[in-house]
């Protein structure tokens, strides 16, 4: 287990319902990883996973907080919101299943690929959710040798 004591820690606040700034946290973290010389493939996996989580926070949870840890052999992302929670995680993980409202779908979201994209691009994913309390996503992406 990594206790994150020796890791680089960055925190990003995500605003809810603000699609003009959605993705800024992911973009800023990508720049940080590029500055650190992390390989392109890993950056891409981190970017996709973090962006999907960030967008979910904007759409469903009125924002939240992302803690990103850059460790010696992996990157951990912890996305915490105080939104409505996920009623059925199995359903939410299904490709094509979405509860995004119509106005959000008009922006090009709501294809039901958010959580599947995260699962496909992370080495480890856990979801803790409680209705009316919020959701925490923990993602790990291993660094290439």
């Amino acid at each position, binding site marked *: 287990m990594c206790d994150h004591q020796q890791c680089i820690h960055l925190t990003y606040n995500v605003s809810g319902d603000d699609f*003009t700034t959605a*993705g800024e946290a992911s973009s800023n973290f990508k720049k940080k990883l590029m500055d650190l010389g992390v390989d392109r493939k890993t950056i*891409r996996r981190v970017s996709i996973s973090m962006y999907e989580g960030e*967008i979910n926070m904007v759409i469903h949870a009125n924002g939240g907080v992302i803690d990103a840890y850059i460790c010696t052999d992996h990157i951990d992302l912890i996305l915490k919101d105080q939104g409505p929670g996920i009623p059925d995680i199995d359903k939410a993980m299904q490709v094509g299943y979405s509860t995004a409202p119509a106005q959000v779908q008009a922006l*090009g*979201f709501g294809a*039901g690929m958010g959580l599947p994209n995260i699962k496909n691009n992370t080495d480890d994913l856990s979801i803790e959710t409680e209705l009316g309390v919020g959701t925490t996503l923990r993602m790990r992406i291993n660094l290439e040798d």
Partner: protein
Amino acid sequence: MNVRSITENLGLEVINLGSGMDISVSSVECCDLLSIAMGNLPPDCAWVTVMSNINTLAVASLTDAACVILALNTQVTDEFTNKAAEAGITVLRSEDGIFETALAVHDLICRE
């Protein structure tokens, strides 16, 4: 075939001249659903779409797309153009439809 050559060969309108005009384009992709694009755009691709909101730029940037080509003469807001300039993303525009535009790019890539 780099972004500059594709732009010149097809006479595409330049909405924003990004930092990657010399990127060698790997492939051409068509998609308007952002999460589908996010999960499937290959690095260095030319992405043809009619979706021209700010989030399109975020997806293009995070997936390392070489450029965005807006088909069907899709219009953009000043906010979109400013954001593209800020992020250094090349955005081009075609009067043709998505398929015709993508096919023309594909032909150029294959011709090399």
